[in-house]
């Protein structure tokens, strides 16, 4: 595996087929898009708290611009930040390293996947600059509003938005096929099904969920594009179409999509928790089976997004049952994570703080979902700020906390330097505390009946009260504080990269294979590909002197039924 020849800048950074470089490309594109999405949220939160002001750095927010900002904030954060960073970036970087092979099975398809993704991002960004701006029909793009320029007033923005989303789906389909095949086929010798790190299982299951759920929406997107550009009537009730069809196509994808981004984040958290609690995961198979159950159930709950959208009311009962049933495997996952901490020896450094805060915050998001899944209560809560607060309490832990947990944990491996722990903690507290102050007021506003996607509540007498404005201002100011603290991370990132001192191969004493490669791993990862002897979470085994037992170290497997405890080893507990 010698790649001794000197590679040019273009070969190394732009047209690379190396999985780590492609992962980084995804990550930095995702971060760049997140900055745009973050700027959008800054603009419209300012408008909501101080209606009518000229927002510094943007100007006055018109209703048309407001819709576009909200729509693209949602679209970007889910499709161009959460997905590329959590699945594509971590998936690309981690899958070959953790299963012990030299690259993805189809490196060139992998490169193509990123290039299509980049193209989709460019199309989306370009759509903000066309006449009348970007699409403003919400990220769900319900027709007929999204289908006809006469209704949405963005004759170019809407099709560009749709094309960007469709391209992005194609990119992730290509990437997903690569992830799935790589993990199924390219595992190191000895890495059987139950010896794969949980994070990989979850990334791959997420890819499968994505692949299976997105198909109908791709067909639906083609139909919507024809409605927009050619004037067909797929979704136009006047011409014999049906707008509800799109809602079903969208949410048939849209709900599994929640799990598509949730699972990788949960996987990252699982690995971090095991390492820093020095504990074996509390029931590896329990996690796996819960995730299977979640994956299957996630396909039969979609219509809870549409309870009051005019679907047949009888169907709502069915979907209430399935929606509440999905709480069982998800709760079980949370219990397993909490139980993993039991009896541990927990180090609270930055990655672990992020991982634990993921659990703390995600629980809030999880339990508030019950209100919305219960059809009766959803009649009132649908499309209020309660929903907004709920899904931000799931998506912020997933996308932002999950990302920070992953990047702080794998930073030494990816970049070969250590992050500053003290700055990391400042950044952590500066993010987590304002985050709660943004969204708890929104729960209150939602309970009081404030509905979504309104650029100015002055027009609604019951909502234009002073006490509500106070809550909106609290949320906006907290947002500003949270954004400000992100600069601490940027500073830390840059400062750590410029450090002279190199990171050790395995700074956390972790078991999984990626820590046996150099930091950062060269093209080809290992001079000789590793072999696996045991599961990834054998921490603090009583028969060992040290509290870890790497996967690659030759020797017995304690999970083997024939495993004999060597009596000469004194018990360490």
């Amino acid at each position, binding site marked *: 595996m010698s790649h001794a020849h000197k590679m040019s800048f273009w070969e190394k950074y732009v047209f690379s087929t190396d999985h780590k470089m492609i992962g980084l490309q995804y990550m930095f594109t995702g971060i760049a898009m997140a900055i745009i999405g973050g700027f959008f949220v800054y603009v419209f939160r300012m408008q909501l708290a101080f209606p009518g002001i000229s927002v510094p750095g943007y100007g006055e927010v018109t209703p048309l611009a407001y819709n576009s900002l909200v729509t693209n904030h949602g679209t970007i954060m889910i499709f161009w930040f959460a997905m590329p960073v959590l699945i594509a970036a971590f998936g690309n970087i981690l899958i070959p390293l953790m299963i012990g092979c030299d690259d993805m099975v189809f490196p060139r398809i992998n490169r193509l996947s990123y290039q299509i993704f980049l193209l989709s991002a460019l199309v989306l960004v370009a759509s903000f600059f066309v006449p009348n701006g970007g699409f403003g029909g919400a990220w769900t793009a319900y027709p007929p509003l999204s289908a006809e320029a006469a209704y949405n007033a963005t004759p170019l923005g809407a099709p560009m938005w749709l094309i960007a989303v469709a391209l992005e789906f194609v990119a992730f389909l290509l990437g997903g096929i690569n992830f799935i095949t790589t993990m199924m086929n390219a595992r190191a010798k000895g890495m059987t099904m139950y010896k794969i790190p949980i994070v990989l299982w979850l990334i791959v299951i997420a890819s499968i969920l994505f692949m299976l759920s997105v198909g109908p929406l791709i067909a639906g997107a083609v139909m919507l594009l024809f409605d927009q550009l050619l004037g067909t009537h797929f979704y136009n009730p006047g011409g014999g179409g049906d707008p509800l*069809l799109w809602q079903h196509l969208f949410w048939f994808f849209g709900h599994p999509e929640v799990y598509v981004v949730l699972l990788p984040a949960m996987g990252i958290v699982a690995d971090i928790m095991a390492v820093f609690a020095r504990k074996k995961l509390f029931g590896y198979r329990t996690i796996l089976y819960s995730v299977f159950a979640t994956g299957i159930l996630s*396909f039969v709950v979609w219509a809870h997004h549409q309870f009051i959208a005019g679907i047949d009311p*009888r169907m709502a009962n069915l979907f209430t049952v399935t929606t509440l049933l999905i709480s069982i495997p998800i709760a079980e996952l949370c219990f397993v994570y909490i139980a993993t901490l039991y009896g541990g020896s927990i180090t609270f450094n930055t990655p672990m703080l992020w991982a634990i805060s993921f659990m703390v915050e995600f629980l809030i998001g999880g339990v508030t979902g019950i209100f919305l899944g219960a059809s009766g209560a959803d009649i009132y809560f649908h499309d209020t700020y309660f929903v907004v607060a709920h899904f931000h309490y799931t998506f912020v832990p997933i996308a932002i906390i999950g990302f920070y947990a992953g990047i702080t944990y794998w930073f030494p491996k990816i970049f070969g330097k250590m992050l500053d722990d003290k700055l990391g903690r400042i950044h952590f507290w500066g993010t987590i505390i304002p985050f709660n102050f943004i969204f708890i007021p929104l729960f209150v506003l939602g309970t009081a009946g404030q509905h979504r996607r309104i650029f100015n509540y002055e027009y609604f007498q019951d909502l234009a009260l002073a006490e509500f404005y106070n809550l909106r201002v609290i949320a906006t100011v907290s947002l500003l504080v949270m954004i400000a603290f992100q600069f601490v991370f940027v500073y830390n990132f840059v400062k750590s990269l410029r450090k002279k001192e190199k990171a050790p191969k395995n700074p956390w004493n972790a078991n999984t294979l990626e820590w046996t490669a150099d930091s950062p791993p060269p093209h080809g990862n290992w001079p000789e590909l590793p072999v696996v002897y045991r599961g990834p979470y054998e921490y603090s085994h009583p028969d060992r002197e040290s509290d870890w037992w790497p996967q690659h170290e030759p020797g017995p497997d304690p999970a083997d039924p024939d495993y004999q405890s060597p009596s000469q080893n004194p018990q360490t507990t």
Partner: protein
Amino acid sequence: MSEAAEHQEHHEAHGAGRYVKIWIILLVLLGVSVIGPLAEIKWLTLITAFGIALVKAGMVCAYFMHLNIEKKLAWYILFATLLLLLVFFTGIAPDVMKPEGQNWESLYVEPTQTDVEGHGYGDGHAEKAH
């Protein structure tokens, strides 16, 4: 089974002549499904059209795509997608497949045969009067 033996069996089961046989059966089935509607019996047409389509698809998958000798895994993957489509259909049909349901009705006026055959239809999708 050793790889060599598997390879051997692969060959015997799939000589070129066998593919031609299957192709002939497929063509006969195709003939039936084209001629079927000429009888103008609705249930018979449904059987000749969709029943035979299923048989044809099954044969192509089994013998041409070699799903019959592929590992079960591939079959599970494909079967799962079909199940998923079934879920998709059952979840959506109550809203899209019918002109009315509980507490709602469609206002779309179905064009008649003359509407369709005359060329006047197309703008005639008037809503029922309020």
